[in-house]
């Protein structure tokens, strides 16, 4: 039996006349969440790893040089954070329209055991077509995670299954591979779009080829 989680809900007012909502956001998890940028990713140019995208193309950090990019870590067995993040990103991309045509968007799995190339292809196919799925050997994923300063760990579920705890932020890089900002999980769309626009604006318009 697992120890019962002790909860501390942040109460959120839900507008006039509506009862206070005890939302499932923790104080550390809600709008007042502390900045997680203390362990910021390295520039893409300082990273070194080799993976395969969901169309079986070899990819790595250099794939993302030349265009602005949005990179996040997750796993396709995740029912909650990852579809939410993917749905949000799809929504941002829809909101940006052609503005986002030159943005590379990549989900890197932290669960290579289950997230084969086929699993990634099937999964990302349900979201915005611009979203790419990268997987690779556990060693290469560990190298990538180190570069992005991402943490992940396997966590057992009751019934023998497992889930993955992982860093849930979305990293934005400019075309030169420098980190522009981090979009925290939960961040409202109106905060996310300007950050993406900033990453795109910092990109040289003469974007070189070599992107996915």
């Amino acid at each position: 039996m697992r120890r019962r989680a002790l909860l501390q809900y942040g109460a959120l007012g839900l507008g006039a006349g509506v009862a206070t909502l005890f939302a499932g956001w923790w104080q550390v998890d809600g709008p007042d969440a502390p900045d997680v940028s203390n362990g910021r990713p390295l520039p893409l140019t300082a990273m070194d790893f080799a993976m395969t995208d969901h169309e079986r193309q070899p990819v790595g950090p250099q794939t993302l040089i030349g265009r602005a990019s949005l990179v996040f870590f997750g796993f396709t067995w995740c029912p909650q954070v990852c579809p939410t993040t993917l749905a949000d990103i799809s929504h941002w991309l829809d909101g940006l329209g052609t503005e986002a045509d030159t943005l590379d968007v990549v989900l890197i799995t932290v669960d290579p055991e289950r997230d084969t190339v086929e699993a990634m292809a099937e999964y990302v196919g349900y979201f915005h077509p611009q979203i790419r799925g990268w997987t690779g050997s556990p060693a290469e994923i560990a190298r990538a995670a180190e570069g992005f300063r991402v943490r992940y760990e396997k966590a057992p579920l009751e019934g023998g299954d497992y889930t993955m705890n992982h860093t849930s932020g979305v990293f934005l890089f400019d075309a030169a591979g420098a980190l522009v900002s981090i979009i925290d999980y939960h961040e409202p769309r109106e905060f996310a779009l300007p950050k993406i626009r900033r990453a795109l604006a910092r990109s040289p318009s003469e974007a070189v080829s070599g992107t996915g």
Partner: protein
Amino acid sequence: MRLFGIAAFALALLTTAPPVLAGGEDVVIEDAWSRASIGTSRPGVAYMTLQNTGAEPAVVTGLRTNLAMMPMIHASTTDAQGVTRMSHMEEVKIAAGEAVALEPGGLHVMLMDLQHPMVEGESYALSVIFADGTEATIEVPILGIAARGPSD
């Protein structure tokens, strides 16, 4: 969309009072929705709002559905390092007059061991079990895998 919890009034009237807790008859469940699944190997998820209209706290102690062998309430939390993890909530208390939201990013129903795929456009019955023994059964609509909310 408004999906209301079904009251188990008769039972509540027949039982004798002692530990006073609100139950299924006092909790209104609204805005329930699920995302479609890919097959059955990955867990499914459901979201909803539980509003306790009673004068006493209500405690959710379990869930039941034919869709999944192990439905349970999970909480997602993000620590100061930005790492998000899920934990099993053995019970969720809803104070009198308050509501608890199960929504993307926070509390959610995790549907483990799916018995069949969750198909967009279909729905399934989910019973919410309360500490006083009452249950509220709702019909949960299944939206697309990229849905972001109950009306998306």
